[in-house]
């Protein structure tokens, strides 16, 4: 007689945010199958999607307090570690998810893409991102990476009538799977070198043993860095970013830019901070190079672009460079700066893409700077908000972007990374040029009378909520940063 199979104990509260999102996604697919094309289907599914996200957010709120007063939760046989770090980035992901869903409702209606599957895909992708923020095992990181990526491939290609959307989908798919395969090979090499895939297990092994052959492990670490570098769009692994950001439906772009970056950096910070702290002197120079290249290429290439979505794509590459500065410092101060940057960046980028969503013409294909000429004169509120968001991304004082950059730079200074600090400051000067170019374009009247972008449509209420929420948060972080800095500090404490 065989002994019964022993299953690991599971702390259901700790993993319920992921479960809530996945359950909401499944319910939506079921509703779609049952209701077919009844007019009720789409609003009902939107309600389910939003309540699933809110429920996940409520659990994260509860987890934050539980963990702060007790200790981090490690569950499912050590595969998942829910700590303040994971909860903090989980909240960023959930905020991005709910804003993207609200933004999508009117967009899908306008583009006649109304399909509940869209919402289900967003939720499943967000569930993968949440799993990524709390993954404590390389194989869980890989699974989360795939669970978040595969729905995004479909979402990028969701607009079947637009060739550019399909092209974005296939490009994202090919390069995304390529990076996943590289990441997986990195996992295999780390497993071969240390005999485990658990992050804490690897750290334990490396602290107790000296490897005779460092080559396998170092190659593995390098491949992990490449795979995750693709996801966070760091140069030289950024080739997909401009094409995918431009071609994908704009609400998907906003979701991708904010949430994927948060999840990707969650994995980077955790894998390298927990498993390989002893190899800091090996990976820090590589991260230094990634940061410098991202800052320089992102800022300089954005200057010569003429499409607003592409400009924002390159700017998101530059933003990845700033987060990498915090990561490169390798200190808890650096992690705190990276977390705060990801938080602020999520709202700055969703806000900017939200304006682009509501200001664009039907078809979502006209985003050149000329199409936006004079927008702020014709529609002062919408245009003004876009100016506000690009100025925040440029790091103008009294916006969250300024505080985020300040934190990153002071973390670099504290880690004696003055070279990186100077390059970062210079890059933000170059970047200010194209941000101001967008602002200038919005404020100058077009040569001809017809207004290409703004067919003076009213902004629907949910998009207005998104715009105001993003603007309010970016402003609040800029004016009273104390509480946010404090939360980011808490989140790095237990890593």
């Amino acid at each position, binding site marked *: 007689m065989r002994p019964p199979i022993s299953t690991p104990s599971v702390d259901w509260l700790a993993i319920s945010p992921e479960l809530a999102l996945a359950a909401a996604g499944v319910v939506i697919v079921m509703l779609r199958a049952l209701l077919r094309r009844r007019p009720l289907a789409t609003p009902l599914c939107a309600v389910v999607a939003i309540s699933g996200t809110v429920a996940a957010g409520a659990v994260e709120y509860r987890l934050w307090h539980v963990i702060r007063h007790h200790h981090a939760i490690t569950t499912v046989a050590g595969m998942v570690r829910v700590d303040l770090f994971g909860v903090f980035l989980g909240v960023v992901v959930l905020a991005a998810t709910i804003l993207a869903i609200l933004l999508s409702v009117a967009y899908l209606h306008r583009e006649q893409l109304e399909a509940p599957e869209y919402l289900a895909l967003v939720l499943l992708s967000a569930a993968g991102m949440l799993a990524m923020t709390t993954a404590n095992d390389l*194989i869980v990181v*890989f*699974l989360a990476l*795939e669970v978040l990526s*595969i729905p995004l*491939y*479909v979402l990028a*290609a969701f607009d*079947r009538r637009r*060739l*550019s959307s*399909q*092209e*974005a*989908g*296939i*490009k994202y*798919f*090919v390069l995304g*799977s*390529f990076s*996943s*395969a*590289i990441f*997986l*090979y990195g*996992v*295999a*090499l780390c*497993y*071969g070198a240390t*005999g*485990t*895939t658990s992050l804490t297990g690897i750290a334990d092994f490396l602290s107790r043993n000296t490897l005779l052959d460092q080559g396998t492990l170092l190659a593995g670490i390098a491949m992990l860095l490449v795979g995750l570098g693709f996801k966070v769009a760091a140069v030289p692994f950024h080739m997909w970013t*401009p*094409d995918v950001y*431009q*071609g994908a439906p704009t609400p998907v772009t906003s979701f991708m830019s904010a949430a994927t970056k948060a999840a990707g950096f969650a994995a980077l910070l955790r894998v390298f901070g927990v498993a390989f702290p002893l190899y800091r002197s090996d990976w820090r120079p590589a991260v230094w190079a990634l940061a410098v290249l991202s800052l320089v290429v992102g800022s300089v290439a954005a200057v010569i*672009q*003429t*499409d607003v979505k*592409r400009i924002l794509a390159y700017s998101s590459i530059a933003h990845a460079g700033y987060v990498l500065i915090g990561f490169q410092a390798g200190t808890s101060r650096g992690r705190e700066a990276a977390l705060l940057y990801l938080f602020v960046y999520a709202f700055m980028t969703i806000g900017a893409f939200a304006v682009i969503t509501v200001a664009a013409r039907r078809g979502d294909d006209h985003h050149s700077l000329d199409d936006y000429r004079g927008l702020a004169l014709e529609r002062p509120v919408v245009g003004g908000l876009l100016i506000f968001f690009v100025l925040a991304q440029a790091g103008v004082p009294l916006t969250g972007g300024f505080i985020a950059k300040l934190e990153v730079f002071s973390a670099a200074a504290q880690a004696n990374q003055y070279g990186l600090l100077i390059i970062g400051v210079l890059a933000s000067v170059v970047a200010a040029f194209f941000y101001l170019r967008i602002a200038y374009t919005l404020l100058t009247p077009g040569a001809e009378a017809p207004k290409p972008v703004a067919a003076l449509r009213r902004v629907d209420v949910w998009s207005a909520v998104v715009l105001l929420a993003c603007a309010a948060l970016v402003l609040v972080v800029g004016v009273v940063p104390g509480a946010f800095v404090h939360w980011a500090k808490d989140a790095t404490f237990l890593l």
Partner: protein
Amino acid sequence: MIAAFHVTPTFYLVLAAALFSIGAIGLLVRRNVLVMFMCIELMLNAVNLTFVAFAKALNDIGGQVLVFFTLVVAAAEVAVGLAIIVAIFRRRREATADDLRVLEG
């Protein structure tokens, strides 16, 4: 002399590395989307071979279990990837990477 020739896990690791490189290079140089897609599958299977070889070398069952996760993920990727390729084929007769150039700037 033949008897001295032992097949060690290292052989499989080298084979896997070669397969992985073939897949990676194929992905970068071939222009047909379907062939690029097959190259990704080759890379994933090379990783599977690496996992199994390491599991054998370390005498640890964990590595063999990981292969199942990879297989599931690869299957999911196949489904989505082929769906996107079919959607593009419907719009146009052929699908090579060079035809996909609406987005360039």
